[in-house]
């Protein structure tokens, strides 16, 4: 009666009699996941993390985390006889002397870039669709932790080979540490085991990079995915989708094939990148010496925004009572990113406070239906983007023959001016899209067919919106701004907690003041069955001037 091979049945029986797994396995097999292209962005992050673990383990077999001076005698001609650290020499050996070494290094580095990029676009998806709302705030915070650790892990990784570029990055990190008031100098001496660069730092960084941080990340990722599994995935509005169900395909066989297959795709693409696009050719930079530098030093992309903020900061420093505070380093490299991450981490709670919304949300927002949230998100991206571009201001100045001073000043001003403009434009676009949705609902979709009426009038024929599109277009209520509470109660006594309430109402007003109302049932009904009007249905006796023009 069963198609299950005996060996599978036997194994299942063995396992189930010991840990009672059948129920869990059955639920997992039948688990429904919704389908949408944007749901695979987080998957890219997960899979590139696995690629990083696999390639990283292999690299650890050959890399020597030591700054002991050696004289290179390997096959790479230009470096023969050059003194270098063992870390750098072993990286050169991995690249030129170990079969598969260079491809593993390049896959590892590409996967790291893709990992952080995937986390970022996954973050955008979660933010703009409101997937962070109740009950998923924990996962938002876990994601913030993962993003932070990913940046740290990436920086630690590309600092390990002890080449000129990575040493320069470490020198900057050391300068940043020293700028911390009160404890900075001590922190720098403890972390580096003395003066920069010291003998201890590379081995210490190595254990952080291959054990400590990946261990923490693996734990966080596990919980992150367990929560997605347990709380079930959100889905976009559409036919049959409600706040109480999840519509999609079962985990087995669909997502085993699709998600499993996608892992191979991600691994395959990083392999192809590693094969054909060179990355971090450390043998061309040479071994690190604290007195050497190359022009155009650039960090990996995800550290670029910090580089840009360091470059944009005015040179403020204060000296009080024999103590120096380097605002020029402290603010752009520690205070600003700390603030950015904190605001981002708290956003779900801020929005929930503003809306007073305590409900669970399993249907995603279309970004246009939350113009202020979408605007704030774009504003943040523009802010980040300006910092990021300024991180390459020397390259831009060189390639486009611009003044570096002008670019830096444009950044300083742009950081304050452009994000608000981006906010306003985004909000306008969202409201415009809302208006178009309303139009489409009430008048149907433009067909592009122009029809000539007997009266000579030319009209465009509109066709009814398919019902599945109607659900999508109608989704997302128009939230109202909370009402401003009265300052005094009926006895003329100032109400307690009033100021907070009023602040909340004001912020709520900012969030939800501008909304295009969704058509009501009556309005939909008034336009026929809501499938749009057709001009030819109108009585021909009417004067042409009153004919609807769409």
């Amino acid at each position, binding site marked *: 009666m069963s198609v299950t091979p005996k060996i599978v049945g036997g194994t299942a029986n063995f396992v189930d009699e010991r840990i009672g797994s059948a129920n869990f396995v059955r639920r997992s097999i039948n688990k429904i996941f919704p389908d949408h292209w944007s749901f695979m962005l987080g998957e890219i992050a997960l899979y590139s993390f696995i690629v990083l673990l696999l390639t990283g383990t292999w690299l650890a077999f050959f890399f020597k985390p030591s700054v002991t001076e050696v004289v290179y005698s390997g096959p790479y001609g230009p470096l023969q006889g050059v003194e270098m650290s063992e870390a750098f020499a072993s990286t050169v050996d991995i690249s030129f002397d170990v*079969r598969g070494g260079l491809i593993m290094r390049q896959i590892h580095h590409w996967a790291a870039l893709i990992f952080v990029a995937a986390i970022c676009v996954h973050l955008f998806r979660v933010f703009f669709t409101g997937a962070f709302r109740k009950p998923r705030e924990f996962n938002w915070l876990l994601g913030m932790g993962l993003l932070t650790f990913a940046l740290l892990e990436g920086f630690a990784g590309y600092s390990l080979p002890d080449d000129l570029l990575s040493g320069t990055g470490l020198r900057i990190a050391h300068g940043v540490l020293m700028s911390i008031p009160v404890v900075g100098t001590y922190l720098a001496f403890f972390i580096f085991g003395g003066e920069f660069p010291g003998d201890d730092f590379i081995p210490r960084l190595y254990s952080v990079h291959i054990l400590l941080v990946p261990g923490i990340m693996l734990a966080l990722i596990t919980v992150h995915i367990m929560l997605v599994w347990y709380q*079930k995935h959100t889905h976009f509005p559409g036919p049959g989708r409600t706040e109480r169900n999840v519509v999609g395909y079962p985990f087995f066989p669909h997502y085993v094939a699709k998600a499993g297959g996608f892992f191979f795709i991600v691994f*395959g693409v990083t*392999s192809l990148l590693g*094969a054909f696009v060179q990355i971090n050719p450390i043998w061309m930079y040479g071994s690190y010496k604290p007195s*050497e530098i190359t022009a155009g030093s650039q960090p990996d992309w995800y550290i670029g925004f910090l580089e840009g903020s360091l470059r944009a900061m005015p040179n403020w420093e204060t000296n009080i009572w*024999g103590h120096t505070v380097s605002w*020029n380093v402290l603010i752009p490299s520690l205070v600003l990113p700390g603030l950015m991450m904190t605001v981002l981490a708290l956003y779900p709670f801020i929005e929930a406070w503003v809306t007073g919304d305590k409900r669970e949300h399993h249907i995603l927002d279309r970004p246009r239906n939350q113009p202020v949230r979408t605007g704030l998100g774009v504003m943040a991206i523009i802010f980040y983007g300006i910092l990021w571009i300024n991180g390459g201001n020397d390259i831009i100045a060189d390639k486009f023959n611009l003044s570096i001073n002008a670019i*830096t000043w444009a950044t300083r001003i742009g950081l304050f001016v452009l994000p608000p403009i981006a906010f306003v434009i985004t909000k306008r676009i969202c409201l415009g899209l809302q208006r178009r949705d309303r139009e489409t609902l009430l008048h149907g979709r433009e067909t592009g067919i122009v029809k000539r009426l007997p009266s000579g009038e030319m009209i465009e024929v509109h066709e009814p919106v398919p019902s599945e599109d109607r659900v999508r277009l109608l*989704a997302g209520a128009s939230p109202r701004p909370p009402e401003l509470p009265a300052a005094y109660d009926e006895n003329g006594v100032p109400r307690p907690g009033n100021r907070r309430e009023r602040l909340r109402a004001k912020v709520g007003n900012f969030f939800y003041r501008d909304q295009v109302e969704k058509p009501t049932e009556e309005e939909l009904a008034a336009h026929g069955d809501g499938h749009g009007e057709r001009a030819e249905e109108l009585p021909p006796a009417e004067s042409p001037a009153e004919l609807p023009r769409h």
Partner: protein
Amino acid sequence: MSERETAGASGSGRHFTDRSTDHSPDLATGGATRDPSAHREEPEADYGHELVPGLTHTPRRTDIDPKAAKRAERQVLGLFLLSVAGTLVFFIGFYAVQLDSAENVGLSTKLLGGGLGLALFCIGAAAIHWARKLMSGEEVVQERHRLRSSDEERAAVIKDFQRGVEDSGVPRRKAILGGLVAATAPLLLTPIVLLRDLGPLPGRKLRETVWTEGVRILSDVTERPVRVADIPIGGYVAAIPETLLDLPHEGSAQLAERGKSAVMLMRLRPEEIVSQQGDNWGYEGVLCYSRICTHVGCPLGLYEQTTHHMLCPCHQSTFDIADSGRVVFGPAARDLPQLAITVDNDGYLVAKQGFTEPVGPSFWERG
């Protein structure tokens, strides 16, 4: 016993919660489910209109045309076979190419990465194609389970917890709790104490370099002493103190000293020099400044001869060499420290004295 029966026989509700009914998948296909009796205390988020039409399903070509299905099957199979070819390319790249030249390293990397990439990509493409074309294309509805525990469950937890607290005797024997805190609090300090030996205390290390009176200035490239005549007007020489080479070669003492005492010599026409940090700190138009940026410590390296501007490649802090190493642009807050120089009896440039202030980036105790 079939697997299905095994599943049925297994105890229910042993995972996550005991609300096994909430989890049991309701694999009803099609038809929007909107059960008004579903337990849910919070008002449902406003869905706009009460319009949730049933799921629609448009059959795919492979659902109705057996030929198309057969074709899809062949495509999946073809992709799997292509993957095998990729793996073969990988093996050939590994065994047939020796890493004896730069070209071969490149060839090896392309064959290994290209073969691996092809092998992996094709497996992925095959699996996804299989899922999209041949597995059921009909969407399935599954009910969500309620996340919030019921009031009874919550009350039971609180009751059990309170019983535990009572049982532990903490309310009656507060001293025990105090003892626990007293025992663990000092213990928590041990890891911090253990971290003490990570590094030495800063001491005066950030304030001192090996530069002192009479130390010869060596070119960082040739490691030979420099005469004024060796530097053309408008020229620039990266330099180090001769005593740096006396430091132990093993370990990082030399590297650390390089990070502090690296300097640069620039020769200007004497009339171009606007100001210096001390009287006669230059020598016949030759000026010596610290090469470590006062921002975060990158070595300076881009000298513009005509403007006498020295630019840091890291964050573009710009210093005017002709005007006391003054900051003219960028995030650096302090002027470059100048090293007073003269020549010794053999005509080689030497330091007149050590630096009079700490070089490199600022720090809290710098003052």
